[in-house]
């Protein structure tokens, strides 16, 4: 049962988000035959960054300082409307689907502005790529969520995800399958995982997201790392909420099922990252548009 007004869910998200990144990295390492970093490594990385001092370039303005803070703030606000499968979000109103996408866009906007503010060509290149791909991914995300809204008959995220039970799946199997595939692709795109961007690359010319934050250091960088983890959590919750149709009514059962789903999702991301290579940049738009098509097809099928 949703507990509107309760902040327990966002707090759990805030605490558990970096764990997902840890699971992803561990999965990749295990598949590669290594032991890999500890599961809690992202926490230590963020803590390490927070303890350091920051260095700011001489040409930068307040935009650079605003970037990480703005990004984190937007994502934290998005947590307020984000349901966790059967567990309701603290804030729910009709149209909060658009609010979610808008907050994600706001966070991206802050980061991009900060990147452009540095005046460096590397960041500029990263910013342009980031915006290029989001211009394609955002309609895809909206289409996917719109299809879900159409199927479940509501415009608020919490009721939408409440309705995705086993019965709904049996009813609309092709539609949900297609939307799920789209959400997976968007997850990979927005969080700059392979096959869109390689998070472990050290070659600036091949980076998209990593290169935007080259000039951030110290606490700013820690905030950025933390915001990235939150983004994985949010988009992962969108997908896991769809794929795990456990709606028993009990908060603990639903929440536990979702947690299992999120962990499995992180494992799947790790497996995808290990199995695929990064696409050439010219093929990425095709990839994203292909995902958007899946949702468009699901939407049009449902129209009739």
């Amino acid at each position, binding site marked *: 049962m949703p507990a509107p007004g309760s902040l327990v869910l966002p707090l759990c998200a805030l605490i558990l988000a970096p764990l997902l990144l840890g699971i992803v990295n561990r999965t990749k390492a295990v598949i590669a035959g290594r032991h890999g970093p500890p599961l809690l490594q992202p926490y230590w990385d963020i803590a390490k960054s927070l303890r350091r001092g920051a260095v700011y370039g001489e040409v930068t303005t307040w935009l650079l300082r605003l970037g990480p803070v703005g990004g984190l703030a937007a994502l934290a606000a998005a947590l307020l409307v984000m349901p966790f499968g059967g567990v309701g979000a603290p804030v729910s109103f009709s149209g909060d689907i658009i609010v979610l996408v808008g907050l994600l866009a706001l966070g991206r906007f802050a980061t991009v502005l900060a990147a452009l503010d540095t005046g460096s060509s590397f960041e500029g290149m990263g910013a342009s790529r980031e915006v290029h791909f989001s211009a394609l991914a955002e309609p895809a995300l909206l289409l996917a969520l719109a299809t879900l809204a159409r199927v479940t008959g509501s415009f608020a995220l919490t009721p939408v995800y409440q309705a995705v039970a086993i019965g709904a799946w049996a009813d609309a*199997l*092709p539609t949900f399958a297609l939307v799920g595939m789209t959400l997976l692709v968007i997850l990979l795109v927005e969080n700059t995982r392979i096959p869109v961007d390689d998070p472990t690359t050290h070659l600036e010319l091949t980076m998209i997201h990593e290169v935007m934050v080259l000039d951030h250091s110290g606490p700013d960088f820690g905030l950025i790392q933390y915001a990235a983890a939150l983004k994985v959590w949010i988009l992962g919750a969108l997908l896991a909420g769809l794929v795990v149709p456990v709606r028993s009514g009990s908060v603990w059962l639903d929440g536990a099922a979702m947690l299992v789903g999120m962990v499995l999702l992180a494992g799947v991301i790790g497996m995808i990252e290990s199995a695929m290579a990064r696409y050439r940049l010219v093929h990425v738009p095709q990839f994203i548009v292909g995902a958007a098509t*899946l949702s468009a*097809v699901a939407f*049009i*099928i449902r129209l*009739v």
Partner: protein
Amino acid sequence: MSPLIETIHAVGLLTCFALLATSRIGACIRWLSFQGILFGMVPLIVHDDGLTARAMLLAGGNIALKGIVFPWLLLGLRARADFNREVQPFVSFVMSILCGILILALSVWLTQEMKPALAKAPFVMLDSSIFLIFIGLFLMISRRNALMQVIGFLVLENGIFVFGVITVVGTPLLVELGVLLDAFVGVFVMGIAIYHITREFGSMDVDRLTELRG
């Protein structure tokens, strides 16, 4: 039976989009083969009287021809002609996909127009058939390679086949098999034509066939 029909519909739509977006001819041929087998199953499930001998003959014939024989012929053609294995489209892949979405909307609208008159036909199959016809036409227009034009023609034939199966119940087998005959002989003839063209021109690039103008 309805979820099965809907799944065939959804996957069929996806095969069309895959054909619009694939850049290698061999992959296109394999998508075509998959599509042929998928829609070949329609006669078996779409009518209430189920697995009649006629339905099985139609389904078997279509699966054999469109799923196995034609792709084999097309792959043979591709192997014989030594040329660029990439599809060269007039319309870029992303634009093709977007056009495909527009065509999907158009076909849904057309289906809604036609549906009242065709009470017994499942809506989604009607939509699939019209969509296949238009996508086949679009593929023929927007691709430069002669082999891709033949593939587009076969997609068109798939659409007509599905349409025939779901709307025409009583007329004799003769006419429905006419589609398969048409496709078979058509592909044969086109294959021979492509062979001659490749021998003469050295490529299957239809864009080079531009000397006759006015």
